């Protein structure tokens, strides 16, 4: 595939599409489930669709260098539109579909989009709501006409009509489009992706064709991906990972990308497609395992025994078998029995039977969880990446997978640890700039091309792999000068199924404290099992037995933190269970579900103060935003609990003196 003469010339998506339409013309390129049936488009058909969209956009007046926003779920038409936009010399800007109107208004205004291609009435309504703030926007194109019949259509178009228009006028613009495509280079802008940003406003990361395609090619070679892969695109379009997997690698390798029927059917669609190449954040793996565990608890005793026995066996030898290490003959036989009766069917139910390569990234994954999937034979690996790097910074190579590291630099990436412990990298995937934000660009990227990740980490001396501790700016010091890495402790807490989110405080303080969010699924199920009645999240979160459970988890975490000589000061002395879930709608989390520390610090200042003051109870009122944008207040009396701390591993002598 790589030796193909055309591939060296294919340095942009429109050129790749032309190549694929010739080389793989009858292979399926896109698939979407609609009306209960998988609809497919071959590469040749996709090429025709893309051309019609491009010509239609041109007819509507799309000019080179224009920005076109794309807002919606994973639908083939959106992926096609991205290339159509590029064919016109314009720049696609995918935007998170669940952004609130104000967030959307900021991004639209910042990128100056003249065109928006959106999914349905919901997105159209959001744009109309902020229309006065984004005067640059001239045309809205929608996919689903439902409910939009009576809207003013002077500046609004059905995508099907745009394509019809394009087909009619194809011959008028054919030459111009061909010239544009021929003139495009690898160094031209490919896409602009807005980072969700745990601090401040989103930043528009400008990535060139070379960034995306060179990175995609080398990562595909690393994993030996071919045109025969199957993937399901279900993660947000606006996320760089989806852009690399569902566009970059799909187009360079020529494999098929399937889109789910709706966001609620992903699990079922996954099972039907049976992907060979799969990505999921730890959250998804955790949910899957929770579902399995809950169902197993409801199963009969024989089934439960079978499951337990074989899963225990897999835990013992599964990973060694996966990594090709030597395992005893009898153990192998028992494992293959397990494969037949338990692991195989289980993977089948989860839609993971055919997976050759599975990645997880975005957050640290719990070692238990990680090992569970690996032990049943899923080649799950961790990945460390960023939008600014076109995803790949490090990957775990086959056979060298450890739960606590993120692997070795992926092909073409150079890695360096700065003196303050921050991880820096340089690679072909390094972004061009932050759009209209030279200051941030200069802060992040050195003139030599090194990029600050903002993460603190070190190279593990035993394995040579990178280990990430925390966000560099979050790493601080306790009052006694010992290192404070909140994320490190939070991750340990979050590995418990009962704990959904945790926020640890302690910068400049005498000790560390924490907010805990319970996981309503896990805790709710436990409550049901134990006949504990509750009427609301708040009541369940404040239940004494829930507190007792969380306390035992915190103690356990403290015990494990105490073993790390560097970080043993981070043990949680006092904690409380929050009365509401941290929510992206309230600004407490980013759209990719990461905690925004500064907002939490401000919003819950009273609770944080109480944690450090030694009160045992506190009354609080919190403002919440409902999904439709209305606001309300939650009032609660929160208990503060004291946890057990353990003596420090090394520094304890000094402390005692």
């Amino acid at each position: 595939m790589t030796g193909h003469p055309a591939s060296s010339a294919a340095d942009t998506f429109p050129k790749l599409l032309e190549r694929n339409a010739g080389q793989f013309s009858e292979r399926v390129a896109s698939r979407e489930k609609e009306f209960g049936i998988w609809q497919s488009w071959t590469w040749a058909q996709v090429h025709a669709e893309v051309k019609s969209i491009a010509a239609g956009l041109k007819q509507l007046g799309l000019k080179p260098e224009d920005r076109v926003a794309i807002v919606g779920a994973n639908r083939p038409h959106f992926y096609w539109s991205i290339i159509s936009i590029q064919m016109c010399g314009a720049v696609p800007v995918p935007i998170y579909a669940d952004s609130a109107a104000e967030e959307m208004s900021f991004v639209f205004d910042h990128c100056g989009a003249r065109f928006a291609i959106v999914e349905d009435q919901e997105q159209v309504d959001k744009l109309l709501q902020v229309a006065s703030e984004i005067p640059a926007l001239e045309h809205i194109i929608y996919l689903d006409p439902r409910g939009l019949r009576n809207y003013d259509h002077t500046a609004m178009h059905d995508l099907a009509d745009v394509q019809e228009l394009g087909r009619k006028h194809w011959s008028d613009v054919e030459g111009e489009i061909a010239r544009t495509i021929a003139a495009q280079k690898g160094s031209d802008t490919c896409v602009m992706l807005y980072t969700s940003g745990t601090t401040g406003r989103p930043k528009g990361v400008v990535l060139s064709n070379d960034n995306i395609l060179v990175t995609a090619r080398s990562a595909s070679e690393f994993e030996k991906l071919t045109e025969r892969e199957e993937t399901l695109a279900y993660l947000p379009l606006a996320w760089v990972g989806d852009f690399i997997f569902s566009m970059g690698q799909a187009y360079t390798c020529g494999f098929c990308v399937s889109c789910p029927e709706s966001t609620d059917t992903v699990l079922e669609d996954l099972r039907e497609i049976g992907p060979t190449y799969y990505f999921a954040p730890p959250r998804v793996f955790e949910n899957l395992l929770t579902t399995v565990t809950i169902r197993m608890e409801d199963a009969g005793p024989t089934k439960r025994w079978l499951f337990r026995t074989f899963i225990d066996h897999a835990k013992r030898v599964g990973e060694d078998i996966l990594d090709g290490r030597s395992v005893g003959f009898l153990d192998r036989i028992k494992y293959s029995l397990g494969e037949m009766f338990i692991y195989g069917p289980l993977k089948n139910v989860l839609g993971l039977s055919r997976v050759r390569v599975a990645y997880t990234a975005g957050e640290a994954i719990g070692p238990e969880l990680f090992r569970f999937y690996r032990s049943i034979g899923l080649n799950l690996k961790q990945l460390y990446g960023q939008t600014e790097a076109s995803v790949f910074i490090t990957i775990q190579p086959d056979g060298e997978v450890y739960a606590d590291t993120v692997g070795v630099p992926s092909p073409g990436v150079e890695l360096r640890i700065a003196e303050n412990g921050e991880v820096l990298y340089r690679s072909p995937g390094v972004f061009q700039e932050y759009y209209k934000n030279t200051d941030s660009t200069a802060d992040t990227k050195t003139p030599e091309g090194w990029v600050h990740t903002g993460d603190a980490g070190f190279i593990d001396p035993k394995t040579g792999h990178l280990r990430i501790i925390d966000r560099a700016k979050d790493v601080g010091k306790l009052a006694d000068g010992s290192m404070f890495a909140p994320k490190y402790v939070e991750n340990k807490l979050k590995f418990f199924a009962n704990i959904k989110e945790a926020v640890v405080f302690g910068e400049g303080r005498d000790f560390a404290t924490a907010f805990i969010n319970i996981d309503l699924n896990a805790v709710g199920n436990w409550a049901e099992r134990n006949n504990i009645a509750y009427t609301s999240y708040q009541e369940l979160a404040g239940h004494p037995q829930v507190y007792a459970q969380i306390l035992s988890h915190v103690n356990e975490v403290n015990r494990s933190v105490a073993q790390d000589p560097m970080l043993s000061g981070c043990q949680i002395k006092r904690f409380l269970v929050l009365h509401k879930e941290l929510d992206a709608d309230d600004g407490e989390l980013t759209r990719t579900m990461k905690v925004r520390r500064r907002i939490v610090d401000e919003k819950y200042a009273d609770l944080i103060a109480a944690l450090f003051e030694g009160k045992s109870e506190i009354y609080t009122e919190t403002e919440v935003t409902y999904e439709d944008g209305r606001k309300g207040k939650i009032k609660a009396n929160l208990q503060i609990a004291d946890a057990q701390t353990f003596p420090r591993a090394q520094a304890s002598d000094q402390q005692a003196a």
Partner: protein
Amino acid sequence: MSAQTKGAAIRMVHDADAPHDFTAENVLHGLPERSRGPVVLEVKNITLRFGGVVAIKDISFDIRKGEIRAIIGPNGAGKSSMLNVINGFYHPQEGEIWFNGARRKPMKPYEIAKQGIARTFQNIALFKGMSTLDNIMTGRLTKMHTNIFMQALWAGPAQAEEIEHREKVEKIIDFLEIQHIRKTPVGRLPYGLQKRVELGRALAAEPDLLLLDEPMAGMNVEEKEDMCRFILDVNEEFGTTIALIEHDMGVVMDISDRVVVLDYGRKIGDGTPDEVRSNKDVIDAYLGVSHD
């Protein structure tokens, strides 16, 4: 969205002798814009008794093509009885029903369903053990032409027919956004979703007139908002005329074009939501007033 109309007095049934000349030009004058289509269904002087109890007394109103018509009233006002009369489940002792310009003979509910009137129920009446898909498929029953033997053998035209019906049903599933529960037995679904499946089954009959009996009862705010959007979308996309009973006044006033108000089996008001809202009798009867 409710179009403001000038000078349209609410027709009161207290003066029972008032002529109901629905065909005359002067009646159209003053109707909201969306309610000026031809009359789809007209009930004239309907009285329904159960033994000595008079459930509905001398009620007349019309439903016009393409509108959303609400029937409201306190508990026991006769709303569901009215729907059951329209739907042919009850046969009124007095009065006439005109459907699509012809006077209707006493009919069985299934004959009326064939004529193009579909409904949902206040207490969900789905087949609990069957999947969403199969439940909605049953809504196509009146449109099936092959007989049971052909269907059982999957022979001849039965196969082609089933595929055609399945396609229609899949479009409804897509429309109501219930793809994820396609194969789930409806008994396992939460209440709000069951209501949606029931709406789907009614839609599967491709009705000219859709009767909804408290489509939003027992729902939370979010489910209500969804249901409102579906009702409006059904009306807009398929052009289906809708008559609905609803308790939530906010919902009624928001989505309906015209409202009939019943109280103790009598009609006490009829007009646009704004007119009904300002009608003294309606305020007294429905929204409650202290009698002192």
